C-alpha cells in the first residue's frame, strides 16, 4: 500500500508533539510494510536516511502551463482578513496581528516558466499564507505521484489533502492532533476552524489522537461519530540511558510546551507560588515559548519568584532530553490537551508526571498523577508529594515503564492500517 502523507513537522524540524507523532507513526507504518511518502513544507536536510521518503513542498515544481490542478485552483477562493494566529506564534517579539496579503499568495498561473515556491516550515506571522502555498504546490503531485491514499495531519495540510482528493478521487484520511478549540478555547480563529471543518467533511475518515479529541470533533464540528476513530499516540522506545544526575540539592519541577492558553502555564506558576515557600530547594523550569510568555514572566516577577524560576525558551529535542535528565517531576497542566506526547517522553526518561485530566494521554496512563488543570491547590499538593516522598517516584517509575512498553507505535500504526483498509474497500 502506498500512502501520500502530508504534514508540517518532521524531525529534526519540530516545534512540538506533532512532528514527534508523525515520525513515530511513519516508522510504525513502514514496519507494517506500508510505503510512505511524507510531504512537509521543506526538509531540513538533516533527516536520517530511512525506509520512507521525505519530500519538501519547496521542491515541487509548479508548472507554467494549464493543468487540471491550475484549473482547480481557479475555482478556489481564499480568505484575506486580519487574523489572530496567537497560539502559533513562535517568537516573543512577534506582532499578534498580521495582515494576510492573499492576492499574492499564489503565483499567476500564466507565468512563463515553472516555479518552486518558498517555505519557512515555521509557525510565523505569515502562516496562513504558507498553508495556502503548501496546498497549491502539493496539488501538482496529483499527476506525478503514485499512491493509494492521502493522509493529512492537522489543519495546516487539510487544504492540500482536499485538493489532492478532488483531483485524484483517492480516499482522504485526516488526522487531528489538536483542534482550534484546544488551542484557543471558546474563541477559535474562524478561518482555521473552517479549514478543520472542511477537512473533516471531505475526509473519508478522521483519526483523533484520543477519545477526548474524538468527542470534540463530534460535538464541535458535527462530524458523524462512525467516521471518527480514536487512535492513541505512542512513544518510540528509549534509545539512550538517562545520564546520571549530578548530586544537586535542587529539585527541578518542569513545565515543557508552548507557553500558550492551551498548555495552562499560568496554573503551573500559581501552583509554584504555593509550593515555593514550603520547598526551598524546588526550582521551576518553564521550557518553551509562546504568546503568554511575557505575561507569565511578569506574574513570576510580581510573585517575587524570579530566583526560583528559569525560562529556557524553545528547546531542541536533544536539550529536552537533557532537561528531563535534570527534572524531578514533569507537570502538564494543559487546559485542553488532545494527547500530550511529552508526558510519555518524560516517563520514558524516568521522570514522574503530573498530567491534567483534560488530556488525551490521561486515557492511556494509569500510573500518572492526574489533576484538574484549574485546581492549583491540588497540583501544588501533588508536586509536593513527588518531591518529598521518593517512594512515589520509585513506584511510578516501575509501573509507568511497564505501561509505556504497551504504548508502541507498531500497535498504534496497526490500527491506522485498519483505518486505511476500511476506506479502501
Amino acid at each position, binding site marked *: 500500500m502506498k500512502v501520500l502523507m502530508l504534514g508540517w513537522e518532521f524531525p529534526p524540524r519540530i516545534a512540538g508533539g506533532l512532528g514527534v507523532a508523525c515520525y513515530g507513526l511513519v516508522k510504525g507504518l513502514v514496519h507494517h510494510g506500508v510505503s510512505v511518502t511524507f510531504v512537509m513544507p521543506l526538509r531540513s536536510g538533516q533527516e536520517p536516511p530511512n525506509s520512507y521518503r521525505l519530500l519538501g513542498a519547496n521542491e515541487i515544481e509548479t508548472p507554467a502551463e494549464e493543468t487540471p490542478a491550475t484549473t482547480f485552483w481557479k475555482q478556489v477562493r481564499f480568505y484575506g482578513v486580519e487574523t489572530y494566529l496567537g497560539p502559533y506564534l513562535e517568537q516573543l*517579539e512577534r506582532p499578534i496581528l498580521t495582515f494576510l496579503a492573499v492576492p499574492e499568495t499564489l503565483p499567476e498561473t500564466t507565468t512563463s516558466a515553472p516555479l518552486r515556491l518558498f517555505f519557512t516550515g515555521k509557525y510565523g506571522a505569515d502562516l496562513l499564507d504558507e498553508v495556502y502555498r503548501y496546498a497549491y504546490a502539493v496539488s501538482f503531485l496529483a499527476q506525478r505521484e503514485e499512491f493509494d491514499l492521502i493522509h493529512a495531519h492537522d489543519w495546516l495540510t487539510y487544504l492540500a489533502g482536499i485538493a489532492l482528493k478532488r483531483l485524484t478521487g483517492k480516499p482522504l484520511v485526516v488526522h487531528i492532533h489538536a483542534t482550534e478549540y484546544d488551542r484557543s478555547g471558546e474563541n477559535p480563529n474562524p478561518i482555521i476552524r473552517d479549514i478543520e471543518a472542511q477537512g473533516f467533511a471531505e475526509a473519508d475518515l478522521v483519526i483523533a489522537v484520543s477519545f477526548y479529541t474524538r468527542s470534540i470533533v463530534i460535538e464541535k464540528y458535527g462530524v458523524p461519530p462512525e467516521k471518527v476513530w480514536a487512535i492513541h499516540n505512542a512513544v518510540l522506545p528509549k534509545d539512550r540511558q538517562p545520564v546520571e544526575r549530578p548530586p544537586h540539592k535542587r529539585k527541578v519541577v518542569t513545565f515543557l510546551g508552548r507557553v500558550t492558553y492551551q498548555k495552562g502555564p499560568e496554573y503551573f506558576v500559581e501552583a509554584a507560588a504555593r509550593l515555593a515557600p514550603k520547598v526551598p530547594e524546588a526550582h521551576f523550569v518553564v521550557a518553551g515559548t509562546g504568546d503568554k510568555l511575557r505575561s507569565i514572566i*511578569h506574574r*513570576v516577577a*510580581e510573585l517575587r*519568584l*524570579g*530566583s526560583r524560576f*528559569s525560562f529556557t525558551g524553545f528547546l531542541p529535542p536533544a536539550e529536552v532530553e*537533557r*532537561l528531563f535528565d535534570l527534572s524531578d517531576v514533569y507537570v502538564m497542566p494543559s487546559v485542553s490537551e488532545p494527547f500530550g506526547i511529552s508526558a510519555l517522553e518524560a516517563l520514558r526518561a524516568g521522570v514522574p508526571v503530573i498530567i491534567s485530566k483534560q488530556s488525551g494521554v490521561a486515557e492511556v496512563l494509569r500510573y500518572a498523577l492526574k489533576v484538574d488543570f484549574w485546581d492549583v491547590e491540588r497540583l501544588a499538593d501533588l508536586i509536593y508529594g513527588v518531591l518529598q516522598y521518593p517512594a512515589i517516584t520509585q513506584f511510578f517509575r516501575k509501573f509507568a515503564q511497564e505501561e509505556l512498553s504497551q504504548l508502541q507505535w507498531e500497535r498504534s500504526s496497526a490500527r491506522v492500517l485498519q483505518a486505511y483498509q476500511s476506506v479502501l474497500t
Partner: protein
Amino acid sequence: MRHICLYFQVHQPFRLRIYRFFDIGELHDYYHELNNRVLMQRIAKKCYLPMNALLKKLITRYTPERFSVAFSISGTALEQMQLYAPEALESFQDLYATGGVELLAETYAHGLASLKSETEFRRQVQLHAQTLQKLFSAQPKTFRNTELVFFDQLASWVADMGYTAILAEGASTLLGWRSPNFLYTAAAAPSLRILLRNYPLSDDIAFRFSDPTWPEYPLTAEKFAQWFRSLPKHELLINLFMDYETFGEHQWAETGIFSFFEAWVENMLQDKEVRYITPQTALAYHEPIGQLEAPKPLSWADSERDLTAWLGNDMQLDAFESLYALEPLLQNLSPEQHPDLHRDWLRLQTSDHFYYMCTKFFADGDVHKYFNPYDSPYEAYVTYMNVLADFRTRLQNAQND
C-alpha cells in the same frame, strides 16, 4: 567671577553572557567577555583617548586655575580598562597628573546599594576610594552616587564618611522654585555641600546636541556661550554633569562634538571672569545659600527624575530584592579566601543590569537601549535570575566549606 563646574561620569558594566538554565551549577563565568572587551576598546578609541587629549590640551593652554574638570570613574570601568584597554587608564592617569582633574568618590560597582544596605554602600565607597588611591594616589573629597541618586539618609552617611560635598540632580522636586546655580547644604547633614546639575544646559550637550528635530539645532559654540552669558548675573556656579561617553559615543565625532566643545570653552574663557572649576574649588569660592531636603530618593534619569528606570517594574524589584537577600551569605566569606565570589557580588550589583529590565518605552527608550545587550527586558531578567541562581548555590556551598 562666574564658575562652570564640569563633571564627567565614566562607567562601564560587566555585561552578562547568555546564561541558560543548563548552565546553572555547571558554569560560573557569567560575563560576555567578547562583548565587554570590544565595547571597552571601542569606547576607549572613540571617546576616552581623544577627549582626554582634548582636555589635556585645554588644561595645559589655560592652566588648571582657569580650566579644570572632575571625573568619577567606576570601579568596574577601571577594571575593564586594566583588562582590555590599559592605554585608556594610562591616559586618565596622565590627565590627572596635570593637576587639572578632581576625582570623585562613588560606589565601586556603580550600583544602587545605598537604597538597600548601608553596610554594603559604605563598604563599596571605601573600596572605590582605595582603588583611586592605588591607581591615581588620589583621595576623593567629593561624593557622587550612582545616577545622582540622592536622599537625606544618604547625605548623613556621606558626611559621616568624611566627604565635604555631594552632587545631585537640579530637579524641581528637590529645589522647588530655587535655582541650581548656587551651592546648597544638606538639611540632614549641614556640613555637606550640594552641587546641583543644571539639567537643561547639561542635556543640551548630552542629548540634544545632534538632534536635528531640536529647534536650536545646530548648536554652535557661540550660541551656547551666549546662553551662559544671558544667565542672571548673580547665578555664579553652573554645574554641567554628564556621561563622558557623550563625547564620541552618544554624540559621534562626525557630529562635531569635539570641536564644538573646544570652541565653546575657548569662547567662554575669552572672558577673564570665567573659570572652569571642580567641586572642591567651588567649596572654597562659594557660600551655600540654603538647605535642601530629599525625604525620597531622586536621580538624574528620565523625565521623572526618580528610580523607576531601575526599580520601576516587578522584574526589577524581584531581581533587586533577590540580589540583596544574598548579602548575609557574603558576610561570612572573606574577600581574601573567596575573591571570585566577592568579584561577582560586586559586578552583579551594577545598576545597568536593572536598567536593561526597564519596560518604559517612552521618550527615554533610546537612552535605555544604548549599549543594551538584550532584545527585551524579559531576556535581561531571565538571564540575570539564572546567574543569580548559580551565584546563590556557590555562596551556599562556600558557607559549608
